């Protein structure tokens, strides 16, 4: 498919330095012989135009930390990396806003802003996570109870649509109703409607004080009830209930048989953090967590190489949280339950060989959990063989005709990650 003429056209479009031919790269079930790594928006747009005009498709990638999220692409001819679009364009320490290119690693952004007392409103796992990738995947980490959803922190985007049209939406100011809010549409779209080129982000003030606490919680029902109550207290940035199988990761001294653990991170003004910490110690026997517990919890949200695993994300209403968690635990999952936000992560270990029955059982449990929680489920991470025969986005959406119409309008030639999104869009 990628003949010499197409390769030459792509090389011309993206520029010789950004065009690389290599031995076919196995990626999400595709073998990709070419990587495009544009360093400017114009080159990104030219690449997409060149692909569109030849009926070719791209697998879009940021840092690659969430590459396993989504259905297997139906087709793909080149890897389109956004890592060349890197750097901070504008940073306003007085305003607490920043504009950076999509390929900028989050670590680079954090380093640039912390001195003036700001922090990023995202904490996805993965050392290589980029700004664009985080937004495209709407990726969250353990502190999302404090940060909110990624979509709520993005002020504006530069996006190149599937046909190479370069567009801007939103702006740099914190309040804006000028025209349609296309920002929301692209955040979480997995690059299937457009490739994010740059973003304006609203930063958060660094908390004056933080504290990490652990609360032992033997029985599930009571633990969930306590965890939901804790999550409503001021200054709570993490309220994650972790079952016995995962608890030792947070607290090495905790034996799996000792039941669940609730990890709480408090963040904010010193009097609030100290007051809440004292209160939790008195009422729920909270004790300081061992150093780095939130970091270790974050790792559990990401992919670990060489460890065959299914990871589901299940959402639930607070009042139905215990029922949802019970379904997952009964099926043998390692469960992290964010009681402040209604997200559960379920990790099912897999045998080394492809075993469909294992996947089926886990899938059914996730579906039961979502139903019990009045929410949804997504298979966020799984080996390729386990994703081949299913839509990882779970239940079919009743808004599918609208999703399809949007994909058709924003990526009419099917250039961007075809097949990756809900129902194979």
């Amino acid at each position, binding site marked *: 498919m990628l003949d010499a003429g197409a390769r030459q056209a792509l090389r011309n479009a993206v520029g010789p330095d950004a065009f690389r031919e290599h031995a076919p790269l196995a990626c999400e079930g595709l073998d990709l012989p070419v990587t495009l790594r544009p360093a400017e928006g114009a080159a990104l747009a030219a690449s997409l135009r060149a692909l569109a005009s030849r009926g070719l498709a791209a697998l879009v990638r940021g840092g690659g930390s969430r590459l396993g999220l989504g259905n297997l692409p139906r087709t793909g001819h080149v890897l389109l990396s956004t890592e060349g679009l890197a750097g901070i364009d504008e940073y*306003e320490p*007085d*305003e*607490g*806003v920043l504009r950076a290119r999509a390929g900028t690693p989050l670590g680079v952004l954090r380093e640039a802003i912390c001195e003036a*007392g700001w922090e990023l409103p995202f904490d996805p796992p993965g050392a290589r996570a980029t700004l664009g990738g985080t937004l495209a995947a709407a990726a969250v980490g353990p502190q999302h109870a404090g940060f909110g*959803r990624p*979509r*709520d922190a993005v002020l504006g985007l530069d996006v190149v649509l599937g046909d190479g049209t370069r*567009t*801007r*939406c939103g702006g*740099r*100011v*914190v*309040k*804006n*109703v*000028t*025209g*349609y*809010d*296309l920002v*929301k*549409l692209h*955040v979480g*779209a997995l690059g299937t*409607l457009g490739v994010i080129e740059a973003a304006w982000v609203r930063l958060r*003030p*660094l908390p004056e004080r933080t504290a990490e606490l652990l609360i032992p919680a033997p029985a599930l029902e009571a633990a969930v009830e306590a965890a939901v109550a804790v999550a*409503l207290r*001021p*200054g709570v940035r993490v309220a994650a209930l972790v079952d016995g199988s995962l608890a030792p990761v947070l607290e090495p001294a905790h034996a799996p048989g000792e039941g669940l653990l609730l990890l709480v991170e408090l963040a*904010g*003004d010193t*009097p*609030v953090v100290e*007051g809440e910490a004292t209160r939790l110690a008195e009422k729920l026997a909270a004790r300081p967590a061992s150093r780095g517990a939130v970091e270790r919890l974050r790792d559990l949200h990401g992919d670990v190489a060489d460890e065959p695993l299914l990871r589901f*994300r299940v*959402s*639930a*209403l*607070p*009042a139905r949280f215990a029922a949802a968690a019970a379904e997952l635990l009964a099926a043998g999952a390692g469960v992290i339950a964010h009681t402040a*936000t*209604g997200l559960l992560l379920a990790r099912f270990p897999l045998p080394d060989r492809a075993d469909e029955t294992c996947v089926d059982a886990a899938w059914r449990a996730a579906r039961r959990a979502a139903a019990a929680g*009045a929410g*949804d489920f997504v298979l966020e991470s799984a080996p390729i063989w386990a994703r081949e025969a299913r839509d990882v*986005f779970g239940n079919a*959406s*009743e*808004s*599918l005709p*609208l*999703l399809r*119409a*949007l994909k058709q*309008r*924003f990526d009419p030639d099917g250039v961007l990650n075809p097949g990756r999104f*809900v129902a194979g869009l």
Partner: protein
Amino acid sequence: MTAGRQAELHAALCDVLGAERCVTRPEQLLPWECDALTLHTAQPGAVVFPRDAEEVSRVVRACRRVGVPFVPRGAGTGLSGGALALDGAVVIECSRMDRVLEIDASNRIAVVQPGVVNAELSKRAAPFGLFYAPDPSSQAACTIGGNVAENSGGPHTLKYGTTTNHVLALELVLPDGERVRLGSPTGWPVGYDLVGALVGSEGTLGVVTEVTVRLVALPESVETLLGIFPDVVSACQAVTHVIRAGLLPSALEILDRRTIEAVEASVYAAGLPRDAGAVLLVELDGPAAALPRQMQRVRRIAREQGASAVEVARDDAERQRFWRARKGAFGAMGRLAPDLYVHDAVVPRRKLPEVLERVCEIGDRHGLRLSNVFHAGDGNLHPNISFDRRDADELRRVLAAGAEILQTCVEAGGVITGEHGIGTEKRDFLGLLFGEEDLDAMRRLRAAFDPDGVCNPGKIFPTTRFCMESNPKARGYDRVPFG
């Protein structure tokens, strides 16, 4: 519309709702000729009062059969002409869909019909220790459905966000009459964020028939401060320093000297010193343990930036008095002349002083009574111009000044509306901010929902290639039928 078409429309709508819930006689349609932007008027083809989604769906299908567009309408408090019925559109009044369907305190959500009044929802949630955070100035009248259409804000959005941050799920009647549910009450839906796209779409993508919103815990403690400043520049600088210090007040509002004068001369008088150059209203809320120190820091910053006095509200009555000045500003300005033009634009916060200076200069140059009251924390300006529309020359100057103000804000890195919307008011200014490609992307969203353009036509998108036309007749202003 021809008499034949009108009769056909009347029959089709009456068939769905019965004659008592269809208004089609021209003299009865007058109240729906405009929203709160009274400069723009247009006569609807009819007004209907459905009670539920099924009836809305049947109304939409009837409109499609007759070939008439339609426009959903809340309380008509919008300030950008968003509820104006262009092209003889049928107004779908949401006032009969005014039920709070559920307050689910354990899950902190409420399910409401679109006609529920904003303040009513918070009132209903209060017994559970909860409230609905977005609080536009018109909250005593405006509806949740209208708030969804306009992505309404209010003085407390700095901390709590606007409507889009609080809507979890929607039921929508699409422009072909189909009903669909978008989003999820959990806040973590799967698929493209269609709720995010819908909120702020000004009723152009369908008719919202049910809204699920997030409720927020009432703060444990609230403190309100009023700083008196020699000029607006020092008040703005205080705001910048407050934000820079990592404080996040729930409100940071400034009234300029001209507004203070108008307020103090009116029934809204709050005892502000009439010689003050600016007043800064700061509200802090949150855990009681945090507020005393935050208040001290705000006081210190205000003093350092030149405040001659910083008052702290001692009780609720005094808090109401402080807010009376802020909330009465529009009423106070409105009594100076028959008409009031409330502008709305946003600039980066640190640009506020220079932009305000330019805005006042523009008003003065055009010989207009212009004052400023604004959400300083958000950089959201509301220049108010009191005028008399019967004075054709003054109206021309009002419009010319408005265009210059928008231009100034965009040049400062800002946007042309922060909470009022584009509607008909600013559709021909959209090109100040967005290029053809950007508008093309918006049209793609529109086309995915409403390929035939029958839902609230004539809004948001520019009618012509952008031009800075300020002849009222040419722009369709004055009380000339619009569109």
